[in-house]
């Protein structure tokens, strides 16, 4: 009884009840979506230009980076499973969004890695290259973050950026036994994949069995070589990541522009229908008014 009376009093409108949009509302919406389409189109052009340049620079960077990792592959250097207690993860993304799943892919991989490693009792620290990654990680994994790097992504990365990151890492005082760099490897204009490259500490390399094959190495030379290799791996990751990011932004803005033009078409039809309905209504009023006389 009470419920029924209150229902009569309040009469809430459940479900989709839409008032007929006026011409003005539709015009406003249409204008704003057209502006958005202009913006996304221009962002796509900019991303396409940056992508072309990044891809050109990626070719020599890839040869350089794979050359730097060749030693570790050929000598088959692996960290000893039992001894490894301190891990380092370098996550490479950038500062800017609107590029699809670039940042979330890397963040997801890092979160999984942290969960695996802490589950087996190892200590992990993370270096964030790019503000987006910091935003994704600092709330839940804040105590694992060692360093944050900002101002990434505005200009194409170069070797000095990689060396700055490597310097900060080495002077941070965190003695890691093994590490990995997690980045988005560029495969083609429409596809990229989150990939990992390993980082080894000096101890791991010098105590690896195959290193005995290499002749005439003293600790100083090895340390210099390792530091240089570290910079090279980070450089490769930066280059690949920036190329993937630009191509992802290009495709994201392209699909945004397409969606916007679809919405514009639909709204234009609605606008015309509404306009004709308004004119018909006026005509009817005039005619019925004239007929009444």
């Amino acid at each position, binding site marked *: 009884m009470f419920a029924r009376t209150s229902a009569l009093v309040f009469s809430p409108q459940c479900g989709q009840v839409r008032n007929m949009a006026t011409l003005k509302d539709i015009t406003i919406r249409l204008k704003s979506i057209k502006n958005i389409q202009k913006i996304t189109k221009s962002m796509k052009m900019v991303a396409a230009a940056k992508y072309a340049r990044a891809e050109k*620079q990626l*070719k*020599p*960077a890839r*040869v*350089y980076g794979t*050359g*730097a990792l*060749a*030693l570790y592959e*050929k*000598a088959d250097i692996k960290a000893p499973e039992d001894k490894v207690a301190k891990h380092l993860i370098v996550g490479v993304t950038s500062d800017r969004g609107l590029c699809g799943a670039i940042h979330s892919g890397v963040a997801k991989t890092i979160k999984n890695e942290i969960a695996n490693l802490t589950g087996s009792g190892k200590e992990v620290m993370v270096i964030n290259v790019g503000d987006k990654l910091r935003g994704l990680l600092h709330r839940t994994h804040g105590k694992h973050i060692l360093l944050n790097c900002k101002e990434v992504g505005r200009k194409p990365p*170069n*070797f*000095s950026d990689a*060396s*700055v990151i*490597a*310097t900060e890492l*080495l002077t941070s005082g965190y003695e890691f036994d093994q590490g990995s760099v997690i980045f988005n490897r560029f495969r083609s204009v429409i596809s990229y994949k989150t990939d990992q490259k390993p980082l080894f500490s000096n101890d791991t390399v010098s105590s690896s069995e195959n290193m005995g*094959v*290499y*002749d*005439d*190495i003293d600790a100083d*030379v*090895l340390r*210099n*070589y390792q*530091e*240089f*290799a570290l*910079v*090279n791996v980070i*450089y490769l990751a930066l280059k690949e990541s920036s190329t993937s990011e630009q191509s992802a932004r290009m495709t994201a803005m392209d699909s945004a522009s397409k969606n916007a033009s679809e919405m514009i078409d639909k709204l234009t039809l609605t606008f015309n229908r509404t306009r004709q309905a308004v004119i018909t209504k006026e005509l009817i009023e005039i005619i019925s008014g004239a007929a009444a006389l």
Partner: protein
Amino acid sequence: MLAARLFRRALPVLRQARSYADAASGAPQMSFTFASPTQVFFREASVKQVDVPTLTGVFGILPAHVPTLQVLRPGVVTVFNDDGSSAKYFATLAAESLSLSEDRRQSLNILVSSGSVTVNADSSVQLLAEEAVPLDQLDVTAARANLEKAQSELVGTADEAVRAEVQISIEANEAIVKALE
């Protein structure tokens, strides 16, 4: 080797097959990769010899060299191709006042080397230099001018980091001048 040559003369029809066999039984070919972050000079190329300036001295690498790791010093890299021609490159740090490098690197306390060279057991060689240019692209008068400027800077400053930078600059410029003369 001699027998193979005689065979070649005697049976010219079989020359093709003979030379394939020679290549396989000869010394392992050196797969040489020489790159800087912005440019690739050689990519898994087969060359005869490479002369490399390292912190412990200049040494030449031939195919089947014993595996080793070395760290480069700013200097001239000479590559001897299979056909006998040679090409010279200058490998150095990017922070050098070479007329071609744009960025100044902030951190110097760690990398005094200008690159690394790796000779692996399967006779592949990776030579990675931070910055490398063919020698004919360098100007000796500009190098001399840079050298003098750096030497006067060294006398003028007492700050450790700046002194280190200037020292490296002097070394590199001296090497360029010596190589170009």
